């Protein structure tokens, strides 16, 4: 699919990413430019087609002349910008963040229906996480199997809010939201009632498809069987935008 032509009022800028000279539309974010140019940059909360959340902090990059780090998903490119996406420091931070996620809840890959198709699991491998240095919290979270089609396992949720956003922004139901705060945050449907009792859920399953882990899955899948399909998202997002 050819990229859409640049609108007349948007400038084109040149920048370097990891030493590569690139051009980009001024309204693009760093992560979009990276993805276009096959520069790998890890992310979990970012998903093309959904609004920017900026919370997983995995896509942080260094920008020359700036003391702090910037989230590639939330930072627009600028003329002459020099971006580094893969420094030793960034790799170290990313590794630690992935470890923090693994330690926060119980992600036991071997018995997960998403085993082999999980973005968190994949990230652990690409970020070089062969073990988790911080202690596992071992808190106990519930499962919700009340929905006839889908299942929610809070133990595997990383609170990326992709489900919340896709439900609100694409499906328009806003069945999902977050409750609580800090590590007590949970994704909820309606007034934190069982998913199957939800009056607002349309059962469309978009939340399941965008979920990066095994937190939201189809009923009836067993270990390793849950393969997600997100191809609908950019298409629907573009069509919604067009209106």
């Amino acid at each position, binding site marked *: 699919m050819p990229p859409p032509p640049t609108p007349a009022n948007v400038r084109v800028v040149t920048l370097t990413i990891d030493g590569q000279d690139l051009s980009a539309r001024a309204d693009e974010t760093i992560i979009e430019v990276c993805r276009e140019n096959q520069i790998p940059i890890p992310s979990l909360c970012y998903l093309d087609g959904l609004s920017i959340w900026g919370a997983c902090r995995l896509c942080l990059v260094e920008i020359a002349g700036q003391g702090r780090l910037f989230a590639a998903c939330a930072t627009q490119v600028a003329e002459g910008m020099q971006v580094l996406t893969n420094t030793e420091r960034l790799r170290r931070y990313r590794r630690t963040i992935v470890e923090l996620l*693994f330690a926060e809840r*119980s*992600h*036991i*890959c*071997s*018995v*997960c229906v998403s*085993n*082999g*198709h*999980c*973005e968190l*699991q*994949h990230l*652990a*491998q*690409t970020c*070089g*996480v*062969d*073990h*988790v*240095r911080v*202690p*596992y919290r*071992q*808190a*106990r979270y519930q499962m919700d199997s009340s929905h006839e089609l889908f299942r929610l396992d809070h133990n595997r949720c990383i609170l990326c809010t992709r489900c919340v956003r896709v439900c609100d922004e694409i499906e328009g139901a806003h069945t999902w939201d977050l409750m609580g705060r800090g590590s007590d945050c949970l994704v909820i449907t309606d007034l934190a009632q069982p998913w199957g009792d939800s009056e607002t859920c349309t059962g469309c399953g978009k939340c399941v498809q965008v979920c990066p882990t095994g937190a939201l899955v189809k009923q009836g899948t067993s270990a390793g069987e849950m393969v997600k399909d997100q191809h609908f998202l950019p298409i629907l997002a573009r069509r919604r935008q067009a209106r």
Partner: protein
Amino acid sequence: MNRLSVATVVAPASLPPMAGETGSMNKLSVATAWLDGCSGCHMSFLDLDERLVDLVRYLDILYSPLVDAKHLPERVDVGILEGSVSNADDLRQAQAFRDRCRILISLGDCAVNGNVPSMRNPYPLAAVLDRAYRENVTLQPQVPRVGVPALLPRVRPLHEVVAVDVFVPGCPPPADAIFYVLSELIAGRTPDSTQVTRFGA
């Protein structure tokens, strides 16, 4: 798109030649044991099949469930532990391995991250024992205490109780991954197992 699949093995196609093919003096001594695990990682080791024959030219397996020796030698080059640390015996075994092995390998998800055994951790130990030995038992329910090691309050990955040098995650780690790790050690290099395996692999 197969970005979620395990990377292809990059292990050396053949093992390095050793100085003086017959010189067993240069072999790496190896000890293995399983703690709280299913032995699947050891089975995966056996899945090396004919490559085992190649490996024993470089390795001396001195102590293992796979061999007859009953005592862990005082000094061992490479220790390989499968399984999580769940009871008092596991803890003793782990400490003994650490004391006596130059390089300690944490093999498989149970050892690396607690895996299935650690799923009891959110529950108090007493509740776990009750569930297993009283609630689900119809005949003479009782918690065994004699002749079995006491369970630790929490199941822990190996590196939480002793220092670990090499981590090989996977449930079980593929035979190729084990082969790669051992080959690298034989060649005197530090293996990076994320090239060949991952959690849950």
